[in-house]
């Protein structure tokens, strides 16, 4: 295949033109607009598939296509100011393109069914087309600047789609929240781009790699006497962009609220693609992260996110909320993967997660569409009504829980295995590994809790159950789910059991992930300086046959002994993971299925449980009933006896005298020091802060200008360039 603009550009341009046309078409001929959007993304999929198969079959490792054109050139004399744009395709891009287009196509098809009764049916597709083209543009970009442009475009689409049902009170607020929260990360991202621009002279990935290899990032940025390596600052800034987009720990709050959007958009944007774009960016900038020595930081952020989000997911009753927190948690795993240097597995988890999480969201959408309700306590027993959805969701739950032979197992457990490896080498990573495995347990538990609550047991709300639509097989209702669910099988991604080659089930032929995706090693970065860039209009002329074929290397370039050690640790990790996954599933099973088998036992052991069921409220009441009433109350009575019998009689009365003395002293202290000093002082200082903060948020434009100028000044004047 010859790579010219005509074979690559349609991937982005088809959805984009669909968007442009649909802007005008949407109101007049909604059906045509929908068809156009769907067909356009399908066309993109065909193009992406061609590229992917090409890279899979014909080309070798390290093969890449890089075409650039000059956007504008304002060079004055020797002072270069030239901005290039271009496309960069390597194995990772090809894989990503295929994933995005495939998932987007299926979601578009699903949306034609799901959104059909919506009054803004066509407008939804307008946004989706724009979003898809922006995402594909981001993936194809060869530099950070255009990544940033598409990044912001996606942010806008996300904003529009979260607020799609703007009649709802919460939707507008949620969209605002999402937009504002991600903005925090984006500002840092932009600053990072500027730093890189200053140092490298442009923002092309290849040039950045080469610059890192040449040690250009070795400088130290000194300001006010504090020195920080430039690489660290740049890496932190870029990673902040990832944190915003991929909803990592401190700024993850927007993603759960983003579930106000229609479910297909949640599936596409807030599960499969846009949130993964943050991770994709970090993967692209991995050499910078490495050079900046912030991998430990990244790993910790990921671990906290993965575990924390999983704990929150335990008590959610909204089916989409569970999925939202699970998304945050899984993104945390990808970030852990970056942090522990598990480049390949992190990217693989990105792909596998995109597939199964999209499927999960679509299944949830199918459930919601069927019963018009999102609360799991009102579901139950839907297995009979929605057999295909159940099947798809079951496979996906297996995948996300990490059951062997499913994709989630392959990818997540490689991340966990690498985390374990790192923990054994470096004590600092022990909490990361612990949190990772703990999160895996919780993941298995809450996913199956969701599955059991939704599909198993007796219908808890008969009104809803009886009015639920019977599911029939339909090309745009459940076929997309089933297609996606098939791809949750691990064999599509890896031929091996754990993906480490030691238990090779299908032969190394299927190890394409290991074969094709390679971490840009620090020692090889200089090679990127020799990567040739072609002019945009030219056809690729190199002889493909002579390029060396990629070969699978089970040892990853390590020596035999080292590889053995690695495999050994991974094997431990895999066994641990399997155990943990089944433990989580069993826990969920015993909680939600066993209850059905033995309701008396359930009722007598947990007396608050039935009440909780009646209130349709699960874990909070359960914990109150069990821990407080069964555990704390008897203990309380005992303490009361002790209190009145012994403590009051002897100790209290005896100390009363002393107390009176102390009382006098403390009253003086209280009045003079605490009240007038500390309490009033706190109030006064709060008021003072209030004055300061109010000035910042005054809405006075001119103050904003002044602050802008001063901040710009402090940025520019302290910078050395």
């Amino acid at each position, binding site marked *: 295949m010859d790579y010219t603009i005509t074979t690559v550009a349609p991937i982005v341009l088809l959805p984009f033109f669909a968007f442009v046309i649909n802007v005008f078409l949407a109101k007049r001929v909604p059906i045509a607009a929908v068809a156009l959007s769907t067909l356009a993304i399908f066309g993109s999929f065909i193009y992406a598939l061609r590229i992917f198969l090409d890279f899979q079959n014909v080309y070798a490792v390290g093969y890449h296509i890089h075409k650039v054109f000059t956007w504008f050139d304002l060079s*004055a004399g020797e002072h270069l100011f030239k901005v290039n744009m271009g496309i960069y395709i390597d194995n990772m891009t090809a894989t990503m393109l295929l994933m995005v287009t495939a998932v987007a196509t299926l979601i578009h098809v699903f949306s034609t069914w799901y959104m059909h009764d919506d009054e803004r049916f066509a407008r939804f597709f307008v946004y989706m087309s724009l979003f898809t083209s922006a995402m594909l543009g981001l993936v194809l970009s060869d530099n950070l600047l255009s990544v940033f442009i598409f990044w912001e475009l996606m942010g806008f689409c996300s904003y529009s789609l979260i607020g799609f049902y703007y009649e709802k009170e919460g939707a507008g607020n949620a969209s605002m929240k999402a937009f504002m929260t991600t903005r925090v990360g984006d500002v840092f991202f932009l600053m990072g781009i500027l730093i890189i621009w200053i140092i490298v002279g442009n923002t092309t990935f290849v040039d950045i790699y080469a610059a890192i290899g040449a040690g250009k990032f070795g400088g130290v940025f000194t300001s006010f006497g504090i020195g920080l390596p430039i690489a660290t600052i740049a890496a932190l800034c870029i990673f902040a962009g990832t944190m915003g987009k991929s909803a990592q720990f401190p700024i993850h709050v927007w993603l759960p609220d983003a579930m106000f959007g229609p479910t297909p958009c949640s599936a596409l944007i807030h599960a499969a693609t846009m949130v993964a774009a943050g991770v994709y960016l970090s993967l692209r900038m991995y050499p910078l992260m490495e050079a900046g020595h912030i991998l430990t930081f990244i790993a910790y952020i990921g671990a906290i996110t993965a575990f924390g989000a999983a704990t929150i997911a335990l008590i959610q009753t909204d089916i989409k909320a569970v999925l939202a927190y699970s998304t945050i948690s899984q993104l945390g795993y990808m970030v852990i993967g970056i942090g522990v240097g598990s480049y390949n597995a992190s990217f693989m988890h990105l792909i596998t997660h995109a597939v199964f999480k999209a499927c999960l969201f679509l299944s949830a959408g199918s459930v919601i569409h069927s019963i018009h309700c999102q609360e799991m306590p009102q579901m139950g027993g839907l297995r009979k009504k929605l057999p295909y959805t159940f099947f798809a969701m079951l496979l996906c739950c297996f995948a996300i829980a990490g059951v062997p032979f499913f994709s989630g197992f392959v990818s997540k457990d490689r991340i966990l295995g690498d985390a374990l490896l790192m923990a054994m080498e470096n004590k600092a990573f022990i909490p990361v590994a612990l949190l990772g495995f703990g999160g895996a347990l919780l993941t298995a538990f809450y996913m199956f809790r969701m599955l059991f609550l939704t599909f198993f047991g007796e219908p808890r709300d008969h009104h809803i159950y009886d009015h639920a639509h019977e599911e029939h097989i339909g090309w745009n209702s459940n076929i997309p789910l089933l297609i996606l669910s098939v791809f949750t099988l691990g064999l599509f991604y890896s031929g091996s059991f754990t993906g480490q080659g030691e238990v090779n089930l299908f032969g190394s032929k299927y190890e394409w992930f290991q074969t094709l995706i390679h971490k840009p090693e620090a020692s090889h970065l200089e090679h990127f300086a020799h990567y040739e860039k072609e002019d945009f209009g030219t056809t690729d002329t190199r002889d493909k046959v002579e390029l060396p074929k990629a070969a699978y290397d089970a040892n990853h370039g390590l020596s035999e002994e080292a590889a053995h050690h690695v495999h050994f640790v991974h094997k431990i990790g895999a066994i641990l993971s399997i155990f943990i996954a089944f433990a989580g599933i069993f826990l969920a099973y015993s909680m939600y299925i066993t209850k059905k088998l033995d309701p008396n036992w359930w009722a007598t052991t947990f007396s608050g449980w039935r009440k909780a069921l009646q209130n349709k409220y699960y874990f909070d009441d359960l914990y109150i009933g069990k821990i407080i009433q069964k555990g704390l109350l008897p203990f309380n009575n005992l303490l009361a006896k002790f209190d009145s019998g012994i403590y009051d009689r002897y100790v209290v009365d005896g100390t009363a005298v002393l107390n009176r003395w102390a009382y006098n002293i403390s009253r003086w202290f209280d009045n003079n020091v605490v009240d007038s000093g500390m309490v009033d002082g706190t109030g006064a200082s709060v008021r003072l802060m209030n004055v300061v903060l109010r000035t910042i948020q005054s809405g006075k434009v*001119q103050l904003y200008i002044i602050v802008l100028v*001063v901040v*710009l000044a402090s940025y*520019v*004047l302290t910078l050395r360039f």
Partner: protein
Amino acid sequence: MFSNTLFLLSAVLTVAGALMVVYTKNLMHACIYLLASFFGIAGLYACLGADFLAATQLVVYAGGVIILMLFAIMLTGGTGNKVNRYGLEKIPAMGNKKTYFTAGFTAIVSALILVKITMSAMSGNPAVANLTNEPTVERLGTILATDHILAFEISSVLLLGALVGAAVISRPRKEIHD
């Protein structure tokens, strides 16, 4: 010879106009001084050999933007009403000592930024004038119709957006009874 004269005249007009915009307390006069400054800038464009830009500056700014500004001043009560509904005087709204002090401070800070950026950008780059002064209209038209065709087309969409948006905003509305 004449080029220097033209430059000096234009520069003096531009700078004086801009300074008077800062100095004057009458909004209408500020507009007129701004017009003078725009004229000066048109002259500077002419000195730079950018004849089309000079004419565009005249057409768009002198003919368009200034008229729009003058209309807007009249539509917001002109300069006649000294006090608005909230009792805020309009003459202090054109600045007092305090605001000028703040403005001076900000100006100094931004001047520092500019100097720093310019110095670093220009150091060691003695710029040499490109003395060929060919007519720019044809060349501009050519690159506008070839290289920058997308920008050309998109600017029409921008203008459409501005037209529709501003028309919607400033459309006289019916009374909302509350």
